[in-house]
């Protein structure tokens, strides 16, 4: 890619990433949440890869990392649901944390935590799909 693209991608990626995090942590207050924010986070990674990375070996290493973090994130979501069973009312997905005041950032109990984990999961999953496609393309060209 040309210098202009690389520089602009460098400048923008940080903002995109921050915006994704903003969407995720405000999931219980504003529209959006884990899924939408996770897609934006994946977008930040994909922008970087499109602007800089074309080295398939390096990408394969990244793919391993992203697929592991995907599995771990969704497993943690399940474990939080099971934790709800052991803490409090013996029901899965029980919201056991104090719920706080409506409208504040730290409120709604366990829901923001689910949002964060789902954000990581979606970002990792979309990134894994993208990497799988791009690695496949590199292998075809060789």
């Amino acid at each position, binding site marked *: 890619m040309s210098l202009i693209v690389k520089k602009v991608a460098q400048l923008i990626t940080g903002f995109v990433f921050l915006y994704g995090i903003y969407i995720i942590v405000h999931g219980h207050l504003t529209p959006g949440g884990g899924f939408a924010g996770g897609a934006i986070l994946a977008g930040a990674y994909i922008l970087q890869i499109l602007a800089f990375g074309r080295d398939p070996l390096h990408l394969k290493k990244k793919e*391993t990392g992203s*697929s*592991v973090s995907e*599995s*771990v994130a*969704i*497993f943690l979501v*399940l*474990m939080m*649901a*099971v934790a*709800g069973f052991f803490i409090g*009312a*013996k*029901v*899965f*997905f*029980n*919201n056991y944390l104090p719920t706080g005041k409506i409208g504040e950032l730290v409120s709604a109990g366990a829901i923001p935590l689910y949002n964060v984990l789902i954000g990581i999961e979606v970002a990792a999953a979309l990134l894994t799909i993208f990497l799988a496609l791009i690695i496949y393309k590199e292998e075809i060209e060789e």
Partner: protein
Amino acid sequence: MNSLIPLFIIIPLAIAFIIPVIGKLTNYFAKTITPIMLLILCFFSVTLLFNNNQESYIVGGWQPVDNIPIGIYLVLDGFSKLILCIISVIGFLVSIYSISYISKYTSENNFYALFCLMIAGMNGVVLSGDIFNLFVFLEISVIASYALVAFGVGKNELEASFKYQVLGNIASFLILFSIALLYWQTKTLNIADISNILKTHDSSAFLTFTQILLITGFGLKAAIIPFHAWLPDAHSSAPSPVSAMLSGVLIKAIGVYVIVRLFFNMFAFTYEIAVVITVLGTLSMIIGSLLAINQWDIKRLLAYSSISQIGYIILGFGIGMMILAKGGKESLAVLAISGSLFHMVNHSVFKGLLFLGAGAIEYRTNTRDMNQLGGLSENMPITSTTSLGASMSISGIPPFNGFFSKLIIIIAAVQAKFYLLAFLAVIVSIITLAYFLKFQKAVFYGKNKNFKDIKEVPFAMSLSMIVLVILCLGLSVLAIPSIREVVLDQAVNSLINVDEYVNLVKY
């Protein structure tokens, strides 16, 4: 609220997500944890089957507000217990079989992860008391099965998987569309709640339209005859353990189960709908068996015979529905429905066994073409004997279970004066015998032309085939009325007494 039924969904889901992580460190983890998990689910579901309590469960503890259920409900009644049992038992035997079979493929971990995901989805469909969550779990299990069908990544596998995906997505679209229509009219997604609202709702064109959409959508998933095009390709190209799961369990858990559940417990079915379902069942019974005669690919023959046997199951339910809708004797309807539940259990056992046998042949000879095979009974005695048992069972030879379930369906049809249906069922049973004799002769008897020095399959594979053939013989005891009452009558009751299901979901 101390119920543990969500474990049926949580355990397989958790295992499915752990496998890709720990599987990177050691190869043995996935192979051992999957059968162990399914064994636990087996014990759990069998204990549930033999005790009488039925329960519902509210996920997240969201209690109903003003008598409107807002949470996600999981409902466990007699019918879902029976299907859960089928899923875990067949799943367990198939996973034992896979230990040897899948080792010839690369990326075994992905196989086991997808397998667990499919089990989780099917358990979710069976337990869900909420029509939208039913759809979500259905998608989980079919997406896992799309990937599993394409697992061999050859040309045929990819083509079959693509065909399956296209038709499966059409079905999913129809189902989602009808769910949206129902939500629009009733303002709720809970099955029991919809059933209550539809009681006061006068039957309209809208309702008929929704019912037809649902029959089409789930008919595509269950591969009833006009919607069967994907099944012969998908079931024959998948790896054999997957074919056994798809044919033995998946088309029942996400096709037949949902049709029966929705039409018995959610809609108050009319006589017209009962006739439509019976006609579809009869058509798939006849055409499926006629198409199977001329197949020379072992797994394609088995796939077409699956369509035919699903036809028997649907026919039994259809006869029951027709009797109930006309206000006939309830004992006859009970007989027809229990016959077809019995056939459902039997079909999953013997069709699973037949596909595993076909897999064993393919494992040793690398071909599925009957013209090249022959005389394998000397080289592979265990595979030959178990396949013979399953073939006799599916074509209805007396000591085996298939005979009794077909007999019950036919007796019910005769007593309810559907003589034509009873006659057709007998004829199809004879055709079934014909093409399974052809299968036996072409593969295990006759002259051994090409494969003189092959050996019996490894222990893990023959073990699960032996257990299944014992089940084939053992399930015949369900024909004895006092035993049938313990196992099948709970399921029949929960279908016939509509109020029982609705009362189970307390709100």
